[in-house]
């Protein structure tokens, strides 16, 4: 049985006051017609007071527990009512960890039947951990004079993972590791892909001898192949800044990009590490496989803006996070100077670095006046100059506007890296 609490309806008070006023006026003036004036209000009150209190029992269940951005949590409610039918409003909310209500679903049911079943769907626009605390009930009679409130406890936690975008080919790393993977190594060795021929030297396997070429040459020629190797990728998520506009969050958009990159690199059998670089630094050491993807997605759920006044620099990143020849991709709106400094420090330490710059303009309101528009343009020019400076150092910077396909920016990054000079060794 669902406990219902009687709520004070404004209509009940209003009709009580108006009916009483008419009766008092009748008593004060001694005129019978004033009784007739107050009678309609008293009839409504008498009608509603004769209606028995609704008795409700039922269950509610919210599912699924795990879903991706844009999905919906559906709360199925089954109610059984006894007594005179009432109209009922069901309401359930999706509550973020901060207490902010991010979505609400409302359904109005005419309880003309004894058994009612309905489904309340709340869409989850952004990644994160959310709670579905309860289903709130609000019942009232036909006139809305008597109201009753109650709730069915759910206490369900929902995890909304970022919806990873399918990327056909990620930016190729400049250096590879020793394990087998899908990236072409710069070195020659055992592999499938043909790289060229050279003269036979003792130690070469006889099966590598190119018979046709050797028959036309004075010496034996052997085929060379490119070994397919994996690489270490470190994805840095800038949590110094979280711009919010119209329910969209720049941090959630950046997490979406990180999830997409992690997904594609792990599918290429690379080892992927993750670091949340902000007021507090959190990290996951490089690993491979679907389990690592699950770990990264879980870490992304907890990524949020954390203010801290301590200076955060490259020395806060553990050395194990950045293995030799690792490819570091920073996903950042490049607003906070500390992230830019981190990218420059990585470059100075000869790390293969690229920046996926999340355009902050998509998370800012439109300029309202001429002065604001001019300031915005000046800021855009300044940002463009900073981007050019990074590119002049050989650091690939791709600007991504949230809502546009990520794949185009990734391809631009790849083209820049292929076209730019080989970094210093």
């Amino acid at each position, binding site marked *: 049985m669902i406990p219902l609490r009687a709520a004070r309806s404004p209509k009940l008070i209003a009709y009580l006051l108006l009916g009483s006023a008419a009766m008092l006026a*009748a008593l004060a003036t001694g005129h019978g017609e004033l009784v007739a*004036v107050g009678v309609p*209000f008293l009839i409504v009150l008498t*009608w509603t007071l004769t209606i028995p209190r609704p008795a409700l029992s039922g269950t509610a269940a919210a599912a699924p527990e795990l879903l991706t951005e844009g999905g919906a949590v559906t709360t199925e409610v089954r109610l059984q009512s006894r007594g005179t039918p009432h109209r009922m409003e069901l309401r359930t909310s999706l509550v973020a960890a901060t207490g902010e209500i991010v979505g609400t679903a409302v359904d*109005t049911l005419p309880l003309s039947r004894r058994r009612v079943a309905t489904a309340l769907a709340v869409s989850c626009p952004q990644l994160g951990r959310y709670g579905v605390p309860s289903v709130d009930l609000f019942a009232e009679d036909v006139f809305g004079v008597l109201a009753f409130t109650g709730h069915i406890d759910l206490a369900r936690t929902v995890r909304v993972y970022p919806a990873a975008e399918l990327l056909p080919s990620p930016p190729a790393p400049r250096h590879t590791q020793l394990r087998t993977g899908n990236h072409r190594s710069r070195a020659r060795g055992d592999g499938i892909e043909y790289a060229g021929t050279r003269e036979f030297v003792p130690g070469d396997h006889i099966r590598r001898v190119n018979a046709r070429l050797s028959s036309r040459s004075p010496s034996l020629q052997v085929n060379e192949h490119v070994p397919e190797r994996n690489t270490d990728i470190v994805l840095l998520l800038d949590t110094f800044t979280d711009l919010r506009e119209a329910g969209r969050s720049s941090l959630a958009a950046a997490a979406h990009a990180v999830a997409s990159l992690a997904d594609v690199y792990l599918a290429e059998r690379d080892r992927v590490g993750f670091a949340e670089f902000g007021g507090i630094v959190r990290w996951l050491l490089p690993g491979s496989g679907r389990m690592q993807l699950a770990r990264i997605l879980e870490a992304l759920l907890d990524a949020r803006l954390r203010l801290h006044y301590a200076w955060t620099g490259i020395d806060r990143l553990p050395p194990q996070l950045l293995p030799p020849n690792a490819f570091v991709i920073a996903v950042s709106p490049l607003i906070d100077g500390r992230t830019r400094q981190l990218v420059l420090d990585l470059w100075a330490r000869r790390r293969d670095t690229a920046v996926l710059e999340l355009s902050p303009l998509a998370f800012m309101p439109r300029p309202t006046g001429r002065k604001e528009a001019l300031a915005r343009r000046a800021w855009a020019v300044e940002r463009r100059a900073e981007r050019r400076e990074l590119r002049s150092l050989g650091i690939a910077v791709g600007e991504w506007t949230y809502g546009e396909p990520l794949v185009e920016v990734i391809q631009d990054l790849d083209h820049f890296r292929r076209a730019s000079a080989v970094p210093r060794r």
Partner: protein
Amino acid sequence: MTPAVASLALCGLAGVAATAHAGDAWRTVVLLGLIAVAVQATGLRSRRFAAVVVSGALLIAAYAMGSAGATDAVDPLAPAYGVCLLLMAELGFLALSIPMGLSGDPQARRRYLRSVTVVVLASLAFGEALVVAAGAIGSGAQLMLLAGAAAAVAIAGTLERLALASLRDFPAAEQ
């Protein structure tokens, strides 16, 4: 016509009816009617349900003032005036979404309209019976006592029901 506009129109109509019923005190009644319309309009715009109560009370006061100046003859249109006030209040509350969820549910709308019709007809019938009775016994103190007792019973019943309802909500251990 939206419920708010219809409620305002009925408010004005009730003011006019109260003025027509009034005798020498018509100026005061007109003033009260105008204030009631202004309060209703302001309240519906700012979505304050108290405005419906205040404007209804002002119109009842206007009618009572008109009745006080009138002769002993019982007004036969008093039940219609009461129904007009009820409809004004209902439309005002509908404009404030009370009862809720009415617009989106055709079945609820039909039930609501049926209930309002029943209440209006019952009010007219009961009011006319009262008026006839008052006319027969001359609007005397007996009828007033009867009306006062009925009102007291209705109000006490409401309060008792509310008190019982809140008592039932306490956990068993605290009872």
